[in-house]
């Protein structure tokens, strides 16, 4: 197959990928009624040079399928129209990009200040996989020809995503695919397989959460990405209805309400790192007794953070949190107590 393609392309100038994709987008934008696949392959630059009128175009057709996906991934609304006379017939499908859904609406313009802010928003992701998405978004907005205000100096905000599950989940959200993964819930002896319809991914209190419908429990659940063990797999052939448009804001609201419900009383050692850093987040403080009160979302997550402070902090209440912290300290002490490791 590869040899055959090489044979055919010999003598014709090689068309670069972006050239072929650009020609495809132009052709599909210019058509009102849509083009047949055979018309695209036989006339559009990048395909036409390799088109075989005798009919052996299987590899070219596969190329077109991949190109179509790639164009759609970029947010270009490439439509497929079925022929009313011949429903279900693949050869009579027509393709087009409706200009009204392609063009940025006229009311979407930006001031130089807003563009500078968007530039800073894109910079937030410079160490994460979202970097290429945000950079592409900026490139598209440069089409407007607006000169942004001078970039904000002396300011380098950054978000990192360290959870391996983040990227596959974001993709599943985007494509509305159900997924499965093993999830280690504190208090359970081992990770358990979950099958989930993903609705939203949100960052709350420095932790990424997945919100969605657990297919086995048949209910809405929220998971911490950091407790997902191993790969996230797509459940093929499973479809589900779109979640409400504001689901991500709603789940952030729920997490925040949960945080405000939970309050811990902590004794912090005077002059310690715990006193300075936890003290800044305190909602109540009794300086005489060295006791502060703090809200938290998840006892297990907060217990990890408190364990790091060792003797600088002691949980007074609630008992659940105190037990979680002492259990963690005991694990760390035991793991480092033995004389020999091997």
């Amino acid at each position: 197959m590869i040899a055959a393609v090489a044979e055919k392309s010999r003598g014709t100038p090689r068309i670069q990928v972006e050239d072929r994709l650009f020609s495809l987008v132009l052709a599909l934008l210019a058509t009102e009624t849509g083009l047949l696949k055979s018309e695209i392959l036989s006339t559009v630059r990048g395909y036409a040079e390799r088109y075989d009128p005798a009919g052996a175009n299987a590899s070219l057709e596969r190329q077109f399928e991949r190109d179509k996906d790639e164009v759609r991934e970029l947010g270009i609304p490439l439509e497929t129209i079925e022929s009313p006379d011949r429903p279900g017939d693949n050869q009579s499908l027509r393709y087009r990009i409706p200009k009204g859904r392609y063009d940025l609406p006229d009311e979407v313009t930006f001031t130089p200040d807003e563009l500078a802010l968007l530039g800073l928003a894109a910079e937030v992701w410079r160490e994460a996989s979202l970097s290429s998405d945000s950079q592409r978004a900026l490139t598209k907005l440069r089409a407007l020809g607006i000169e942004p205000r001078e970039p904000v100096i002396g300011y380098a905000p950054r978000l990192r995503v360290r959870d391996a599950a983040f990227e596959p989940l974001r993709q599943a959200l985007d494509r509305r695919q159900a997924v499965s993964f093993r999830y280690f819930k504190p208090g359970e002896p081992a990770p358990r397989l979950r099958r989930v319809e993903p609705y939203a991914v949100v960052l709350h209190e420095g932790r990424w959460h997945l919100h969605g419908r657990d297919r086995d429990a048949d209910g809405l659940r929220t998971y911490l990405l950091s407790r997902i063990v191993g790969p996230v797999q797509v459940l093929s052939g499973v479809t589900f209805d779109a979640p409400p448009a504001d689901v991500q804001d709603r789940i952030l609201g729920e997490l925040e309400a949960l945080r405000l419900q939970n309050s811990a009383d902590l004794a912090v050692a005077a002059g310690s790192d715990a006193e300075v850093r936890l003290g800044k987040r305190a909602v109540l403080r009794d300086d005489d007794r060295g006791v502060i009160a703090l809200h938290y979302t998840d006892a297990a997550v907060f217990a990890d953070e408190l364990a790091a402070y060792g003797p600088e902090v002691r949980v007074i209440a609630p008992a659940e949190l105190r037990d979680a912290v002492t259990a963690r300290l005991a694990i760390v002490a035991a793991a480092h107590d033995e004389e020999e490791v091997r």
Partner: protein
Amino acid sequence: MVARKPLRASDKLVFLLAFVPYLLERRVVDVSEAAEYFGLSEGEIRDAVRLIATSGLPGETGTYQPNDLFDIDWDSFEDDDVIVIVHHVAIDDAPRLSAREASALIAGLQYLSASPENAGSARLAALLEKLRLGTTGAPTQLAVAETEADASLARIREAVTAGRQLEFDYRNALGERARRRVDPLRIASLGADWYLQAYDHGREDMRNFRVDRMTELLVSERPIADHSGREVPDTLFHGSDSDLDVVVDVAEETLPLLADYLADSHSEPAGDRLRVTLRVAHYHGLKRLIAGLPGLVTVVAPAEARAAVAEWARAGLAGYESPDVPTGGSGKGPTG
């Protein structure tokens, strides 16, 4: 200029689709001007212009006739390095954002809302709405909670902008407390943690300070010195010759959490875990790091590092045995 990764074909396509409406909007554009605006080399811009100038529609006959092609003023382009499109087809407007692209910017903006730049600003809401309008379909359901910024941040920002010195009490990672006088140069953040990168007058060198470790902050009347020749480091963590190597076993899933401390990219299997080497400034920071990842990371060597971690955890437990004594003691604590 920062080194840039080579563009992928899809990125080049997006550039072409944005470049055409930009050229139409601006009408007459110097190659150098376009290169600067899009952050590309002049060679890349010229290549793109040549590609566009020979692109177009297959047309009725399927043969790309001149009237179905873009055309540029070739004389201006070849003699003066100036781009003028004289005939265009199919596109004249900016493309909409994809769901992923829009959500990346929206989540980035939500994160920035914590910063003094945007505190409580209505323009942020308007901006988010415009991004939603400009998206094909709806943005991916990704969101970042707005958080309360450390109150110090606004004052630090003020000092950076005004070019004034800052003074504050600072408790460093070793637990030493001292008054510091600095020239603030840049505010940096990493997730929920905010840092000030500054020239420290006492140490006569650049230092990174955690904002949440600062107290008694004061914006001074004194202006900062000229630091234009000084480079503010892009990374918040950097090693020094006095750093210590520590061998640890870590669960594979936990490895990304140690990324800032890895001495090298080498790892070897150790049972169901990975054995890697960390580089830390001192055991004072190490014991906190390990205790904060309970059960996920175990120090293997050296023995002093193991002992420091064990002692830290035992001291923590001891606090629960005799609540009147916040530190000290060496007995085993209750295991909850």
